[in-house]
């Protein structure tokens, strides 16, 4: 099984941006992850699929610094990393778009984009916000990603679901991040908005960033991803290049109807 995994990865040559080796994590008596191995490449969309409770989110949370694994290691950009919290991961260039988007509705788009990364002039406690620089920067972020956002000065409360998703993705993409993790980015969106977000994901990919996608939508996974990892019962049971597989095979791997 792991041999198969390694075989799959051996077929491509460029170095992975993230390499997860033998990751295990237990919550009390529940073994959430068992010896998980997977790789993500820059400039690719990597999907993790699996049934509810298969360990997708847990594995991703280990990468983004929310959980700390019991054993195993994570290599980021070739060197082993040990994130103590999501801030560490963000510093390193791993951004997460949370399922709840983590936007403050009463703040404006630009304030959300720069939340906890505000540009200031001055030092220490006397530092004042450089609102103009942040507005300009936010405008750039939003326009380079060609997102349908009304105005960076608008409060998030007034935005539609797709626009909010776009703001959250912009924030994740906007700070020279190397890896953007997205947990069900289109679950709550309509058809048109889903199309826009997918466009955005492909744009991130074309900029050379790695995107890690958790999705239950197989059509979307087949449409967007370059590599698919299948998780079942806390294990990463298979890895496939999307071009070499079919939706049916993925489903069979998820349910266990087909052994890896």
């Amino acid at each position, binding site marked *: 099984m792991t041999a198969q995994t390694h075989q799959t990865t051996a077929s491509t040559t460029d170095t992975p941006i993230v390499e997860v080796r033998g990751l295990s994590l237990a919550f009390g008596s529940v073994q959430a992850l068992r010896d998980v191995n997977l790789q993500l490449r820059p400039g690719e969309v990597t999907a993790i699929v699996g049934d509810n409770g298969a360990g997708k989110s847990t594995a991703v949370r280990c990468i983004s610094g929310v959980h700390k694994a019991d054993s195993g290691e994570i290599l980021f950009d070739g060197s082993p990393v040990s994130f103590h919290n999501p801030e560490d991961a*963000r510093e390193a260039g791993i951004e997460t778009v949370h399922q709840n988007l983590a936007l403050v509705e*009463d703040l404006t788009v630009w304030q959300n984009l720069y939340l906890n990364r505000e540009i200031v002039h001055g030092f220490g406690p006397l530092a004042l*916000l450089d609102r103009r620089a942040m507005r300009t920067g936010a405008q750039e972020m939003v326009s380079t990603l060609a997102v349908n956002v009304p105005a960076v000065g608008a409060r998030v409360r007034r935005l539609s679901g797709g626009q909010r998703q776009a703001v959250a993705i912009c924030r994740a993409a906007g700070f020279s991040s190397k890896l953007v993790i997205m947990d069900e980015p289109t679950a709550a969106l309509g058809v048109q908005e889903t199309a826009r977000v997918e466009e955005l994901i492909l744009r991130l990919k074309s900029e050379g960033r790695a995107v890690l996608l958790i999705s239950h939508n197989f059509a979307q996974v087949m449409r967007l991803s370059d590599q698919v990892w299948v998780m079942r019962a806390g294990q990463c049971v298979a890895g496939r290049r999307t071009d070499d597989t079919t939706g049916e095979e993925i489903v069979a791997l998820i349910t266990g109807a087909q052994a890896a």
Partner: protein
Amino acid sequence: MSQKTTPPPGPSGPAADTTTTTTTAGTTAGTTAGPDTAGSSPITVPAHAQSWVHRLADPSFWADWAALIGLVVLAIVFEIGNSSFLDVGNIQAMLVASSILIVLSLGQTFVIATGGIDLSIAAAMTFGAVCFGSAFGHGQPIWLCCVIAVAGSAAVGVVNGLLVGVAGITDFIVTLGTLSAASGAALVVANGQPTTIVDRFLLRMSTDGIGIIGWPVVVAALLAVVAHVVLFHTRFGTHVLAAGGSKEAATATGISVGRIKVAVYSISGTLAGVGAILLVARIGASEPAANTSFLLNSVAAVVLGGVSLFGGRATIIGPVLGALLLTALANGLTLLGVSEFYQPIAVGAVVVLAALITRFQK
């Protein structure tokens, strides 16, 4: 036909949602699409006038400015009832009378902006005041008395902050507890007795000022400006609003909500200490009195100022205007010869009315 060629509405409109359906785009774009509808008279309503009409029709506009509108209405009513209401002397007196409440409301605003509430703010002020009296009674210099007063009140705020932010106890319960504890501590420190404080500095503070503007007003105004800058022009202020608006989002972006809580309660306590000095200067004594009306009025001023009790939305000018409104209300009723007993009823009615208006806030 013209609808097909209608360009998307300009950046001023709530564009994105409506552009997909051409019919709504056609109607909402009204003014901007004017030139396209050939033959019909060109619409010449300037955009800013249009937006003003639009804003006046929006109930949330009225909710945002409830305190200012209320203040203007009260000024007109009271001036009609008693022509001395808007005399320079009376305005001067009202400003001085409102300064303590303004200072407390500033602290309360920071706390409420995080979705909390500081019920102990007046008790902290009382505790600071009796600390002042005790230090004065022991022959300490006046500057040290002031420092001790601020330190005493700030200590109450820090305790609040640690219990809410670090221990994770609900704001309401913590500050209800410290309300009682600080009141009790004030009685203990003062031994239940008021201390008369006669001092030239305090006397000048309460009677002098810059021109016709009393020192307490100057202090309150300066603190309000500082509070505005802190809330809207520093990272800390943004994080206060973020923590109040969405705890999850703030945490996800690495903001420590617990630390923000400690900070806002400390600010509230410190400002209560400033209030304590102004109070001692005003009444010429330190008393272990409950000062309950200051607590209620500080919350009332914040609500009147359009600050959301759920957190995340705040202004500084709003609560300041709210405090002025409440003071003007008491003053005006007194001038009209209405019994003091009716004043709390009027305050209560105004506050509930303001809360009712804020339901229309978007």
